[in-house]
């Protein structure tokens, strides 16, 4: 299987080096065109007026909040079941990015809610389940870093991530299963999008920008985690084993 090949961190880093500049370029390209359409070249809404433009940040952020959690839970499962070292690092690296997207979705939603609904926050099923998602990310990060041995931290956090995965379909379908103040889905729904093409174009462009940004930042973070692991291994060898190579020896007294 392909993912066994990239269980080797060095082989993974080679792939990451190839993808990273493309992801960075795509992020820039999609953000520039997306923001141009979202802020300048698209009309106001017949009900909401200019406030509709908040949607171009809110909706992609909310999509990514769910996407990142799904990716994190899947990576955590692969790490847990197949003991895949890079998958563990991918799950760890996804958590803070997903948490930021979730916060952004909650924050922009609140800004939109005040002028449109007449309230910053309500405890309806959609808003509450997204808030739980945010806390799941925070809990995952806290648990993953609560152990001296990172492998144990990843294992414990992976279990939390998998348990929390139940929340993802609840978020998606909350607006269909229960009466909520939050509106039902406009884009991914039976019978085609209920959103005019002049507004769908900036939305899709912004969604692509967010996705490319995620890939870009994820690769940087995984690289950082791999390097941190190497430093940890060197330190351990210094303490328990023979002297490390001169070049890798850290200065005395600094820990």
């Amino acid at each position, binding site marked *: 299987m392909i993912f066994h090949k990239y269980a080797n961190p060095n082989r993974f880093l080679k792939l990451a080096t190839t993808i990273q500049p493309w992801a960075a370029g795509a992020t820039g390209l999609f953000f520039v065109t997306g923001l141009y359409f979202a802020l300048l070249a698209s009309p106001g809404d017949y009900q909401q007026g200019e406030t509709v433009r908040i949607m171009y940040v809110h909706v992609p952020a909310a999509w990514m909040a769910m996407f990142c959690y799904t990716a994190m839970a899947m990576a955590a499962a692969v790490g847990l079941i197949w003991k895949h070292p890079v998958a563990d690092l991918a799950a760890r690296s996804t958590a803070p990015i997903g948490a930021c997207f979730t916060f952004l979705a909650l924050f922009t939603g609140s800004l939109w809610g005040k002028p449109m*609904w007449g309230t910053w926050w*309500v405890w309806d099923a959609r808003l509450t389940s997204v808030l739980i998602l945010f806390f799941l990310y925070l809990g995952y990060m806290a648990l993953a870093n609560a152990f001296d041995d990172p492998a144990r931290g990843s294992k414990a956090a992976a279990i939390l991530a998998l348990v929390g*995965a139940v929340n993802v379909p609840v978020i998606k379908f909350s607006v269909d299963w*229960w*009466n909520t103040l939050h*509106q039902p889905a406009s884009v991914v729904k039976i019978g085609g999008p209920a959103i005019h093409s002049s*507004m769908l174009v900036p939305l899709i462009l912004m969604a692509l920008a967010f996705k490319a940004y995620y890939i870009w930042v994820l690769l940087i973070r995984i690289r950082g985690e791999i390097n941190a692991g190497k430093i940890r291994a060197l330190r351990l060898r210094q303490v328990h084993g023979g002297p490390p190579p001169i070049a890798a020896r850290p200065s005395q007294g600094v820990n």
Partner: protein
Amino acid sequence: MKRKHKRLTFVGIALLLLGTAAALILTAFEDNIVFFYSPTDLIDKNPGPDRRLRLGGLVEENSVDKQGGGQVVFRVTDTAKTVNVRFKGLLPDLFREGQGVVAEGRFIKGVFVADDVLAKHDENYMPPEVAEALKKSGQWQGTEKAKSQ
């Protein structure tokens, strides 16, 4: 069975049980998760005046009566049944006849006395010109698509 297959089976079964448990809990608490009652629910259940709850539906056309002093009376409908609502205070920008609304308050003697009114936005997004064109050509389907059953 290899150890990784054991782990895979274990995780799979655990997730399945967890999903079932979550589904059962959410079904059991359905009444508490629902954000608002439709007029039909409200009339059928007829809760006492001491229970605070939310009523959601569409503001009926030509039913809004602004009586001065911030007092406003309107009717909320789910196209099957209709409830009279009395409210004193500021209405949100999106409050319009034919639009969704959620009112919070008490159901007292057949009148819903609201102390808070929120506008509910639907899932349709379009520029004003498109909305106009749809209305003109008779393809408009804004008001009669009541979401709440």
